[in-house]
């Protein structure tokens, strides 16, 4: 019972701060993208446009709810809710500071992967339930993509597990703060594993160059083509949440989490997460997108063998490098 209460307390704290960060993150992204494109970004709503994301959400909430008559109503309504649930869910096991963790599961890493794997359900449901060709194509592409990239993701996530000998995320972070951050040392499985994790995270959260499911120049709006109003907001939010939580996971697993010079704590975790978050958007507003077959080739022909190799490098490091134990 105490677990329920503890979880609920931390959930409210973590979820609300994640949403707040996302509101600012959207603003920041739009400003950053604007500057990269020689624009100003939002300027009108609030000081320097800070309230723009809020205004957008309120505007979208007011929109009429239109459901296509050929849609599968129940799934159509359920999909956005599940999208938010599964994108937020992984944050449950991420320690933001030594104490700020909602549920410190002993299989934390596996939990993150499992929740991530569940994300295909709302994506497919949305694509299928819309009964729209663009949505269905987007949904099927998305499922195939996220299922494929789950393989290198699972494998590279194993690298910190091997190095630290635990699947509990907080233990991985503690191990890093006692030794070195995994992205820094051992540099050979560590840094490439981090890079691979970043790529797989981009793919899992459908960010350019992997934004196949909503490739709007091909599929209009992909799975969200038929969605209006609040349900669209949920998908939109889920996308950002997915990226943010993915960044937090990356910061915890590879960048030492809350550890940092001077005074370890929450602020370092937030800083690292936001840096990764920014990097995602920097990449997003720079690159073009892959074609779906190139994506699959990249995953199965390059990333999977590299990931397997990294797993063994990490294992060999643990086994044969003196002092690694």
């Amino acid at each position, binding site marked *: 019972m105490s677990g329920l209460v503890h979880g609920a307390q931390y959930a409210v704290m973590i979820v609300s701060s994640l949403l707040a960060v996302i509101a600012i993150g959207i603003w920041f992204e739009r400003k950053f993208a604007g500057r990269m494109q020689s624009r100003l970004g939002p300027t009108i709503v609030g000081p320097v446009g800070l309230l723009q994301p809020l205004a957008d959400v309120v505007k979208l909430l007011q929109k009429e709810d239109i459901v296509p008559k050929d849609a599968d109503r129940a799934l159509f309504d359920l999909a956005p809710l599940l999208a938010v649930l599964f994108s937020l869910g992984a944050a449950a096991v991420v320690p933001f500071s030594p104490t700020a963790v909602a549920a410190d599961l002993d299989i934390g890493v596996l939990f993150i992967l499992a929740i991530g794997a569940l994300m295909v359900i709302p994506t497919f449901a949305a694509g299928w339930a819309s009964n729209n060709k663009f949505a269905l194509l987007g949904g099927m592409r998305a499922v195939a993509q996220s299922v494929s990239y789950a393989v290198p993701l699972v494998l590279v996530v*194993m690298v910190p597990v091997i190095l630290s000998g635990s699947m509990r995320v907080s233990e991985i972070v503690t191990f890093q703060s006692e030794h070195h951050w995994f992205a820094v040392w051992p540099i050979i499985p560590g840094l490439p594993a981090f890079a691979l994790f970043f790529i797989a995270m981009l793919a899992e959260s459908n960010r350019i160059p992997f934004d196949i499911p909503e490739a709007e120049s091909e599929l209009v709006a992909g799975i969200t083509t038929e969605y209006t109003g609040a349900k669209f907001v949920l998908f939109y939010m889920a996308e950002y949440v997915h990226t943010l939580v993915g960044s937090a996971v990356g910061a915890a697993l590879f960048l030492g989490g809350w550890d940092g010079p001077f005074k370890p704590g929450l602020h370092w975790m937030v800083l690292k997460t936001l840096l990764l978050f920014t990097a995602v958007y920097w990449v997003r507003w720079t690159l073009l997108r892959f074609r779906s077959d190139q994506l699959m080739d990249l995953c199965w022909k390059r990333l999977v063998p590299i990931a397997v190799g990294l797993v063994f490098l990490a294992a060999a490091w643990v086994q044969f490098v003196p002092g690694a134990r």
Partner: protein
Amino acid sequence: MTAWLSALSFLVVSTLVGAGMLVAARILRVRARAAASELKTRTYECGEEPAGMAWMQFHARYYVVALFFVVFDVEAVFLFPWAVVLRELGVGAFIAAVGFVLVLMLGWLYALKKEALQWQ
């Protein structure tokens, strides 16, 4: 168990966020005076009359990809227990896992050679 309960309540709170948004929209949103017209609820297909339903047949390669995913995930699932005890068990466990994965990568090589990993 306690941690699982915490995770459960976290998931419940996450759902509440989404549900709250939907409820807020129900209060805030504009309602059309008239019943939605046929045109309004028609499926979007670039402004043309949609040609048939969207629920059509997909290519078998989707299935193959899912199959590969399951196989590799099973591999990973077997490796996770190995990963956590690697430190304690020594070289024997390392070699066992190398053998395990090498056999699987043989399958991967076979698939590569037979172009089963080709998306098109």
